[in-house]
């Protein structure tokens, strides 16, 4: 299996296609050049329309989240675009949803902390365990290795829905994992994250040149030394992309949280709280956009900050041959 080195090829294609340096382009008759230009104009227009349509919903949420509470009780009385006519913004919505004042408060800071406390250990667990397994699948020698690897790949596709009921029974009735702690969520998320993690890392780790590992072995390094000193440092790009993946996935999860968290402010993540407050209609409906924005700000920061690694991970795992 080969991970397509897409970025490399992309830059190659870009240099070859530099405008003006292309002899075929210069040989084009005037008519054709005008025609290509026209079509590209339409294409650009279409692209801009799609980009606007795609961004408007999020932008609308962002503007709405800073709009003051409506005059009378109930939902707001005008659309977010009016904000630009009667210039009126406030951060009160944010302080309201974050602080634990009042019985109706969303109390999001608690749930926000839960999300952080859930996502960080899970990401570390999956990275370490998946890279260990991926290393053995790539460089270990044992009977049935390839068959087992394909089996693990196939596990990706077991719907979580299938795993939930027995797993919940196992956690509470057999293992007696403490309720009101993160343990159930950590373990469940780690279990569910492993197949994809092993698959993505395996692609990368199996591409590490065999000579590097052979040389270390000749020098007397054991498997654990090779793994921690050579494989892991060399796999940093793949580990980074998997970390982002896992982070976004666990942060954004609702299903696993609903089943395993118990729904209390001690454990439940922010998505669960958000689903709760958006599901109930009430006088404080107008706070939902601010609450939603609190929940998406971390993934957005992670996404925009680490986008390059994220995309690279998608490509090495997704594009085969």
């Amino acid at each position: 299996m080969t991970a397509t080195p897409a970025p490399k090829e992309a830059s190659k294609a870009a240099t070859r296609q530099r405008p003006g340096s292309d002899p075929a382009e210069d040989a084009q008759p005037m008519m054709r050049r005008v025609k290509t230009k026209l079509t590209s104009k339409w294409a650009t227009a279409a692209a801009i329309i799609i980009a606007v349509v795609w961004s408007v919903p999020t932008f609308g949420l962002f503007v709405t989240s800073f709009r003051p509470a409506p005059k009378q009780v109930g939902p707001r009385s005008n659309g977010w675009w009016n904000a630009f006519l009667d210039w009126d913004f406030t951060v009160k919505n944010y302080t309201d949803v974050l602080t634990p004042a009042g019985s109706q408060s969303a109390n999001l800071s608690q749930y926000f902390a839960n999300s952080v406390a859930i996502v960080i250990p899970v990401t570390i667990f999956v990275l370490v365990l998946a890279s260990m397994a991926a290393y053995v699948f790539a460089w270990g020698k044992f009977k049935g290795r390839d068959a087992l690897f394909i089996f693990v790949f196939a596990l990706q596709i077991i719907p979580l829905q299938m795993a939930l009921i027995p797993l919940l029974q196992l956690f509470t009735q057999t293992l007696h994992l403490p309720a009101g702690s993160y343990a159930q969520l950590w373990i469940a998320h780690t279990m569910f994250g492993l197949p994809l993690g092993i698959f993505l890392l395996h692609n990368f780790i199996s591409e590490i040149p065999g000579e590097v590992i052979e040389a270390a072995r000749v020098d007397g390094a054991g498997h654990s030394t090779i793994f921690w000193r050579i494989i892991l440092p060399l796999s940093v790009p793949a580990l980074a992309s998997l970390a982002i993946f896992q982070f976004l996935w666990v942060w954004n999860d609702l299903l696993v949280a609903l089943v395993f968290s118990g729904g209390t402010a001690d454990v439940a993540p922010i998505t669960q709280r958000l689903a709760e407050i958006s599901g109930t209609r009430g006088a404080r409906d107008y706070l939902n956009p601010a609450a939603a924005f609190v929940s998406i700000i971390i993934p957005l920061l992670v996404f925009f900050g680490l986008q390059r690694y994220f995309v690279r991970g998608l490509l090495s795992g997704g594009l085969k041959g």
Partner: protein
Amino acid sequence: MEFIGGKLLQVVIALAIFAAIIGILMLVVDRAPKSVKDKVTVAGFLAPAGILMLVGLVYPAVRTSMLAFTDASGQGNGFDNFVWMFTQPEALTTLRNTIIWTILVPLLSTSFGLAYAVFIDKARGERVLKSLVFMPMAISFVGAGIIWKLVYDYRGPGIEQTGVINFIRDAMGMNPKQFLLDAPENTIFLIIVMVWIQTGFAMVILSAAIKGVPVELIEAARLDGANAWQQFRNVTVPGIRGALVVVLTTITIATLKVFDIVRTMTAGNYDTSVVANEMYTQAFRAGEPGRGAALALILFLMVLPIVVYNARVLRKQREIH
């Protein structure tokens, strides 16, 4: 902020236990007698991930398959749950919706993603344009649900509209529409949300694949007098076939499992439920774990052909490698 302390302590303890387990494992691997060292290494590196996947995915999948043939009290009832699924009008609606979702979402996301990737290829500001459409990938389904509720917001006729689409309808002299309430088209409006999320994924993968298509081929087609559409159809599309399959597969699987969008936007009411959502409702709300398990099993059977196909592709690639 006193709640932070307890959460932090839990996280630190979990990480310490994890580090201890991995440390002991490495010690065992390193100290193993030479004769069995390789075997111990494979076992030690694979065991943590292997055990977690067995307990978290394989065992539950088997249990759920068995549970699907029991009634609410846990007694075997043969195929009753499946009969229910294929005869009850509500259950049939759920199946119908799931089929609509799995056809439309992959098709629309991939088409939009492909069109956008082609339009912005080598355009000015390509990276920014890409980010705008890719951004919804980072937003949770719950967050997306709240964003789109805002877009679809409905007020009675004659009142100022607060939802973007109804505002536009109003301006064009049309009556406002209850996008989420009117069946059957409300399913389409939920599907739009999923398309909004998945298009960015398709676009990123396909964009990289397009850049991998040899420029010489496109030049040759252009010199042969092929217009933009013919170049696209006869050169670009065949060149990215592999990536197209991957994108369609991944989005189809994600769509089959979709749960959060339906849950946060309509909770499956007004004839919008899908199998993944109905499974949660039956198993955890209605006290019918047997029916829930049966739905999960159906979900698995729907995904199975995709798994088999991908596993075969994977095996071929490993043989070549």
